[in-house]
């Protein structure tokens, strides 16, 4: 069975090549890996006008930000971000750089803290992303592949471009209606 690549949909995230930067307001930058080129470039854009950028990194080292190091764990990163957001005024913008698994996790946390979608900008770096099996509701991490097998129910899945912002995941649906179960079950 070959899965045809599905076309982009309205729900498919589009990552703008350039972030938009407001003249005023507080700037928070959350990066998954301070060592990647995208993170350095984004920090450069955000600090080009001399305004302060508050940085939180998960891993890596940021020579472009005084050698700041990653905090090492996602839990710790989220606590730091929540602390910053709890004292941030309206007008704050959040910039996130990382793969889609990371970026959308941070996105959901920020939305739950009261930021609107238009106050968050995501810059994609890396190809890891989340897939949600619509048959057994299991989430698994995948890469660029357009078909895979559900790690829980074993159904062969087509990776649709339909994306849930609430779950931060693409939807995986049974690729073969004649075999809506795992192969080895027969």
């Amino acid at each position, binding site marked *: 069975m070959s899965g045809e690549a599905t076309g982009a949909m309205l729900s498919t995230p589009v990552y703008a090549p350039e972030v938009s930067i*407001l003249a*005023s*307001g507080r700037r928070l930058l959350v990066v998954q890996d301070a060592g990647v080129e995208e993170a350095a470039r984004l920090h450069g854009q955000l600090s080009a006008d001399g305004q302060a950028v508050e940085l939180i990194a998960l891993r890596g080292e940021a020579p472009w930000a005084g050698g700041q190091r990653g905090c090492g764990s996602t839990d710790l990163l989220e606590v730091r971000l929540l602390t910053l*957001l709890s004292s*941030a*005024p*309206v*007008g*704050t*913008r959040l910039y996130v750089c990382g793969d889609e698994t990371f970026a959308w996790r941070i996105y959901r946390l920020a939305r739950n*803290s*009261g*930021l*609107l979608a*238009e*106050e968050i900008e995501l810059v994609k770096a890396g190809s890891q992303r989340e897939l949600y099996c619509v048959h057994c509701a299991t989430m698994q991490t995948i890469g660029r592949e357009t078909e895979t097998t559900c790690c829980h129910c074993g159904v062969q899945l087509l990776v649709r471009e339909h994306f849930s912002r609430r779950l931060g995941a693409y939807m995986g649906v049974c690729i073969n209606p004649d075999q809506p179960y795992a192969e080895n079950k027969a």
Partner: protein
Amino acid sequence: MNGLLDVRVAAVRQLTPLVREFTLEAEHGALPGFSAGSHVVVHMPAPGRTLRNAYSLLGDPAEAQRYRIAVRLQEDSRGGSRFMHEQVNEGDRLQLSPPANLFGLHSEARHHLLIAGGIGITPFLAQIAELERRGASFALHYACRGGLTDAYRGELAGRLGARFAAYDASAGERLDLAALLRSQPLATHVYVCGPQRLIDGVRSVAASLGWPQGRVHWEAFAAAAPGEPFVAELAASGRRLEVPADLSLLEALEQADVAVPSLCRGGVCGQCATRYSSGAVEHRDSFLAEAERAWQLMPCVSRGCAGSTLVLDL
């Protein structure tokens, strides 16, 4: 008839020399419930024509047996507010459109910043009743003129304490919008109701401080401004209507018994958008996109131009 509510004026209170409050009860049956921020359009049987003005319901939405509205006498009244002030007494009968809400509270807000200017206080009276019931976080800032347009000020100060601030322009007090909007916590939504100048001020200061449009909610309290007289023609029947300077196109259509659905009567909701096929238009709404204006107009505020016949698809 035609979906209007028949009401009786149960009480009239003069709150300030410029502001009168009316309590309205159903003539028969019960009044429909309403949500905080709703308005009704009052149909006033003035001699020679029916006047229609939109007023916010200011009572507690939990007590919908009676509606309360407050009317500020406009110096340049086109008749509506003067009629309410001079002609309407206890026991009189009026007709209302059912309540509609174009100024509701945002469900995702965790702090509600309410900014009222003068008679723009009215929708917030219903909203603070709702917010207090929900135990929600809010603050009300009231720009007014002491003794003239400061209705409910004393009552609000006592009821809300530190959550209330009034700025009396006649005492030289000013609401500093930049200072207020600069320090609001995330998840705040701001709501403004009052004169156009205040609404424009809040919107522009908010934008300059990085507030996205989704956090800024506003309701204009202005009736259609007068303009030049012009002629409108109805394409279906060929009828020609002379629209005088002090009447909006919507009002002229209503007087001619041409039904056009409307809600806000202030150029914001889009309900009355009407197609036209030719004629020069002075667009005054805040709803239609530039491209839509080539073939649609909002007759509640927009007008044809003098010397050109506006042909409507009606």
